[in-house]
């Protein structure tokens, strides 16, 4: 069975500092990997996705993520965080043909002035 681990429940970053959110997955084949963001009271917005090919993927809002098969990781990064990035971030894995998503428990990002 597939699973996703986000080891950090909360992270606080100063505005303008760099950010890295960790995600580890467990899946038998090549996974489809996603990062979503959820602002308070909102649904989920897709930041970026990895299906195949280049292991460094670019997303919206200046985010990027790198797929590392050897480490079963798909960490999310941003070089300079803005106060508006404060939200909860979810990593998810999807399986070919079944289309359902398995989510990590999320990382809450707090941005300090």
């Amino acid at each position: 069975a597939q699973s996703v681990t986000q080891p950090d429940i909360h992270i606080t970053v100063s505005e303008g500092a760099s950010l890295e959110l960790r995600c580890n997955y467990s899946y038998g084949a090549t996974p489809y990997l996603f990062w979503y963001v959820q602002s308070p009271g909102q649904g989920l917005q897709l930041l970026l996705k990895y299906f195949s090919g280049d292991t460094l993927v670019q997303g919206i809002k200046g985010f990027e993520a790198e797929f590392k098969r050897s480490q079963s990781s798909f960490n999310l990064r941003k070089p300079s965080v803005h106060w508006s990035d404060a939200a909860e971030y979810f990593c998810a894995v999807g399986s070919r043909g079944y289309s359902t998503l398995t989510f990590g428990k999320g990382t809450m990002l707090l941005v300090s002035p």
Partner: protein
Amino acid sequence: EAGVTQSPTHLIKTRGQQATLRCSPISGHTSVYWYQQALGLGLQFLLWYDEGEERNRGNFPPRFSGRQFPNYSSELNVNALELEDSALYLCASSLARAVDTYNEQFFGPGTRLTVL
């Protein structure tokens, strides 16, 4: 283009009652997914409907059920409500099921169910 819509926004029920949540997918999407986001438990997959059929079900009791209508909208029913059913219920839609690839899911804003 309109996104995924859900109604109601908020729903308050008491233990033992039934709740009905509704979802309208993006036009052209035939798959609808339901997820539960409960405090401390994260997002958990509930149900997946495609072309009117239930395709997959998460690890939830049978009192969680649903259906998909001919216009591809969907309804989630929760019977015999329990306090722990209090959660945000998210609906997502995607293009038709594909065997050898993955269709992106687009999420609605959710329905906040509170069970008293």
